[in-house]
Each structure stands twice: as structure tokens, then as C-alpha cells.
């Protein structure tokens, strides 16, 4: 349908340069060495991953750095069979998931892969809450969350 009035198109590009600070810089350096770092709150003793410099609940520093397990359990997941999302680092099909890495106290947001994703029902039969998964790394490291390629189910 032809519009009665004009539409003006305008694309805006805004280059930003974010300061990563010491905590993210150290976390990314860990990823480059295939290590996932968390940090422990000095007061409540919760372990956060990715590592961060403070505990939001206790408002004290969480500067005890620990390398956390690369295995964990699936808390939730969502499967894109064909839908493309702006800003998504992977193409469909993919599974975004919340994963509780062993001995940590929050969920880690990443991807599940290494399985047949063509049939949602089959995926649902395979991925249950609590399914054990482990990190698989990309060969090339960029100091980026996607240095971890995805998490794959651990058999047995």
C-alpha cells in the first residue's frame, strides 16, 4: 500500500569504546588460556561467574579469584530452529542456555551445541533440567565470551 505521506529513513551509527576495567580484562585473559574465572564474595561466600569485582547483595568486594569448573548443569534452554536474531554471534539452529557451573552460585549464559538440533521434540527429549554439560573451546581465542564455542552434553 502506498503511503499518503513520506517516510524518512535514517541509519545511526554510534561508535563506543567501553573500559573493560581490571576484572573483565583478567576474565578475558583467562578465556584465552581456556580457563573460566569466577570470584567469591568475602562475606556471603557466593561464587559469581564471570568473575566480578563486587558482590551486589553484600556490597563488599568479591576479589578472591578462583578458576571454576568447566562442567555444569542445564537450568534452562531455548532453541532457535531458523529464526535469526540481530547481534546473535551464531546462526540458527542454536540453543541459548542458562548453565549452573559446578560449585558456583549463579547461572552462566551461553550456548549448547554438539547435538542434532533439527527437531525440537528430539532436543526436548535430550535436554532436561539438570543435564550435565561441559565447555568446548574455539581454537582461535579473542578474549571474548565466544572463545567458548558452546557446551556439550557429558555422556555417562
Amino acid at each position, binding site marked *: 500500500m502506498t503511503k499518503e505521506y513520506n517516510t524518512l529513513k535514517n541509519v545511526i551509527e554510534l561508535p563506543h569504546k567501553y573500559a573493560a576495567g581490571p576484572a573483565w580484562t583478567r576474565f578475558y585473559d583467562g578465556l584465552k588460556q581456556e580457563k573460566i574465572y569466577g570470584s567469591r564474595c568475602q562475606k556471603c561466600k557466593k561464587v559469581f561467574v564471570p568473575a566480578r569485582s563486587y558482590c551486589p547483595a553484600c556490597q563488599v568486594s568479591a576479589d578472591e579469584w578462583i578458576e571454576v569448573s568447566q562442567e555444569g548443569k542445564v537450568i534452562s534452554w531455548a*532453541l*532457535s530452529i531458523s529464526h535469526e536474531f540481530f*547481534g546473535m*554471534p551464531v546462526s540458527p539452529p542454536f540453543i541459548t542456555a542458562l548453565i549452573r557451573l559446578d560449585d558456583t552460585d549463579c547461572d552462566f*549464559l551461553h*550456548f549448547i551445541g554438539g547435538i542434532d538440533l533439527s527437531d525440537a521434540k528430539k532436543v526436548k527429549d535430550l535436554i532436561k*533440567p539438570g543435564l550435565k554439560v561441559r565447555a568446548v573451546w574455539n581454537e582461535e581465542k579473542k578474549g571474548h565470551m*565466544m572463545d567458548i564455542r558452546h557446551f556439550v552434553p557429558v555422556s555417562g
Partner: protein
Amino acid sequence: MATRVGIVDIAMTPGAESKDNFLDQVYKVTKEVLDKAGIKRADVGTVISAASDVFHGGMSCANSYYWDAGGAFLKNGSRQDGESLFAFIYAVMRILSGSFDTALVLGVCKGSENPENDMLTHFFTDPFYQRQVGLNETVAAALQMREYMDKYGITGEQCAKVVVKNLGNALRNPYAHIKKRVDVDDVLNSETVLYPLKQMECAPKSEGIVAILLAKEDVAKRLTNKPVWFKGYGSSMDAFYLGDRDLLDGQLKQAAKRAYDMAGVSNPKKEIDVAEVCEPYAFQELLWYEDLGFCAPGEGGKLIDSAATNMDGNIPVNPSGGVLATNPYVSRGLYRLAEAFLQVQGKAGERQIDKKVNTALAHGTHGFAGQCHAVAIIGN
């Protein structure tokens, strides 16, 4: 100090794409609400706008742009970002402080002219972690839905019923954006956006410019013979990172409790006559029922099965059609308030519920999977 704050009147645009320019829309709703009250721009004490200009408008500091269209220039006014009900409570407080007799609240969002919601909400993320793994509001919602279904056995059919109910109600609302009668199969057969979430279970992008005029008690009584009174308000914001949160134990319970306590509501199931809730994803309406105290945890699916939240049920929810029918992203909380106001006044036309409305609830949410919630209680 003023004792009570009344809503005098409202004006809003329909949700479908308009041929009007944004400024003309702001001008028209402002003019309409002041005309209804029979006052001039000079009589307005303060103006508070709700906006999220940079991404939803493509313009920074945009209140400088629309301020004169809203009759606000030269006035002691302000703007807030995020959940638009924040602008309402800001205006209420300015009147309660005794500094202003009247306040105009504006909610501005022309959804037809900005990028897709998933693109915009991708920038709700931090650049260091969640943006790098592609998070947006729909991804967060699908993760929340999966947990909700797994934990409580909520079914796809129960989620789809929310769409059927709300789009059915929207057929009676001249301001609604999406108007079509659908059944459960239509919803379940729509595209799977992100399994288990279906395309028809995701809110559209709509236009929504709304103006709400508030006044202190004596002025409100002078300006209208049916003022609707502010009774209570509460809000709460959960932690930022999605993984730090329990997505099934969110902050709406806190926001609602704060609003109920202020309003003196002890049994919401009985005392709330109608609720306008913000459900950008269908299943969230069921989860919000639980958090608002309309049913026990895990019982949201059963509540919609019982038809209690239909137009003619015990606790009608979203007689306007809700956000699934009309989603002016930024101003959607104020749209809920405007609709709740019309229900209390008995002026909601064909979408007016049958029973007398003494107390109504308006809810707004912002952020991923309901990170932030605000609840307002109004009544006669």
C-alpha cells in the same frame, strides 16, 4: 501537603501506524486531555514524560524536541526513562509535595518508526558478557518460559489461551493495534520464534502516545465529576545479570506487596476488580497472576483454564487486549493505567467489564524476563 491525588482524564493514540508525525501526535493527545478537563496549558503545574528516546526514538535528549508539543516548555518539568509508570509516581509525588496543583504525564513511543524490539532490547545488555552471547528480551523470555513449563507443568495450550483471550478482548477496543480473532491452534501453529515460544505469543510493535492529567483533590473534583484516585504504588528491580536471578521468583511480588500495602489491599483476589497487566510474552501473564496474588504459585495455567480472567470472570485481566494486542514499548505501563482509569470511570465503552469497578490495578514491566516491575492501584 495535599491529601489525595486524582486522575482527571486521559487521552491516547491508537496503536496502529498513524500517518501523523510524532510531534503532531504528542500535540494532539496533550490538547485533547486539557480540553477534556477544560483547562489551558498555563494551568498545568508540571509535566513529566516517560520516554526512552535514544533507541526507541532515534534521538538523544528528545524531550527538548517534543517538550513544546506537550505544552511543557517554560515549565518546571522532567523526564524519566525505563518503566513508564515511574513517570506516574513522579507526577503523583510532585502533587503530594504540595508544590503543584496539577501534573501532566506524557508517555511517548512511536513503535512503527523504530527498529525491531529484539534489536532494541539487545542493547539492554552489557557489552562485556550478555551482548557477546546475543541476549535480547525474546531470548530471555524463552528461557523463562522453559523454566516455567518445566517446573509447574504449564502447557503450551494454557500459554496460547492468553493470546486468544487478549486478542479477543482487543476486538472491542478502538485503540488496539492487532485485531483478529484467533484460536489456540492458530497460536500454536504460528512460527516458533524460539522454542517453546511462538510468534503470536510475542507482543507486536505499536504506537502509543498517552497523556494523563493529575490534580490534587479539590482541583480534581473541580475539573471532573468522576475523579479516579491514586491509592497505592510499588516497584522493584531485580539483579542485572539474567543468571543471577531466579526467573520464577521475580520482583513483581515485591512491587505488588508494596502497592497493596499502601492501598490497604489485603486480599487482592477479592479487592481488585480489574487488572491491566503488561504481558509482552503470553506465558508471562500467567506468571504475573501468581505474583500479583490472583492465584497460588504454579496455578497461573489453571486460573486461565477457569476463565476467571475473562471479561466476565471474577478478576478480568486485560479487557483492553493488553500488550499482546498493543505494545507501545516505552509507554505501555501508562497505557495500562489509562485503561484501568477508564474501567473505574465506567467509560471503557465496549470493553467495559460488566461488574462495578471500585479498585483497578495497572502493571508495567521493563527489562529482561520482568527484571523491573511497577504496580499502581487506583479507585473511586
